[in-house]
């Protein structure tokens, strides 16, 4: 049985005979002052971590959120900014991240296809304002 994806230009595929595996997106940096917000992130606990980072280790932190977690990333950034009053400022930029999905046939595991997906992302740079 052949995969429908390969024969049709449509983005749809047969979910009964195929499985989509999402590869994790490429992270801009692995440094500890880069915080990646996902749908599962707890904003309160992450706010405490960010506070500790800004108080003890770093003068700047970077917050990244993509897709459905953009709003959460902005809420988190504003929460950190609010906690520090006027001593922390923010810069915001947006970008498009290319994500890759693997579509694997459940009938023939050797047969797979990749598909690229564009996801919007937001990057917030929080830094200590010079007095």
């Amino acid at each position, binding site marked *: 049985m052949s995969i429908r994806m390969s024969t049709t230009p449509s983005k749809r595929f047969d979910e009964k005979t195929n499985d989509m595996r999402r590869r994790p997106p490429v992270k801009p940096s692995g440094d500890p002052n880069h915080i990646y917000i996902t749908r599962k992130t707890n904003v309160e606990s992450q706010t405490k971590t960010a506070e500790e980072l800004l108080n003890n280790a770093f003068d700047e932190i970077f917050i990244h959120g993509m897709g459905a977690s953009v709003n959460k990333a902005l809420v988190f950034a504003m929460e950190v900014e609010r906690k520090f009053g006027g001593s922390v400022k923010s810069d*915001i930029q947006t970008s498009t991240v290319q994500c890759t999905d693997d579509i694997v046939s459940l009938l023939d595991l050797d047969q797979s296809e990749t598909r690229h997906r564009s996801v919007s992302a937001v990057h917030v740079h929080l830094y200590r304002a010079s007095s």
Partner: protein
Amino acid sequence: MDNYVPSDETTVEPSNPFPPPYNAEDAKVMLVSKSSKFSKINSYVREYFTESSDRNRFVVFKSTNGATEKAISCVEVFKQQFEEPLYQWTRVVCSKRIVLWKCQQEGPRDIRVTVEVPVIFIVISRDPFPGEYSCMSMQCSSDKEIAFLPNNRASHGSGGKSDKKKPKKGNRKTNEGNKWTKPSSEQRKNEQKERNQLLKEIEGLSAQ
């Protein structure tokens, strides 16, 4: 909260955070909600830019009802579709939603709940922004670098990996007293010389 009922809800909308001319009353503001369609908004903005290209130089995208991801996606799609380079300036402010909960029983007082919702404002301009407003929140659609990458590189260069390896090497050198460590090439050469000298001495004694 079983005995409380929401009675009044007010929303304090934030004002446009950009300086003039981007906050002028006649500036075109596109309100993006969760149910907005990319095609409708983007085709409208495209028409607005092309109908009088000398007057219509910028548009402000504003998210409503927490549709920040939609507003960002809308701008990203428009930047990719538009032929000319576009300049972007992003700012986030808070809108306050105040809900008054009234108690159905007598005695407890009413509760006033304030929820802060982020609202994103994005200016898309065909001209570069004035130099006096220059900040890191500005970007251009022709930029191919990931946001804040130069800082990342700088921090990554002085990052932990190389620093972590150095003390390990130092530890190995300080372990010279340990008899189980692999001898260095100089130590092996010295040992070989000593062995050769001993052999020569033994050979000389046996010849006598």
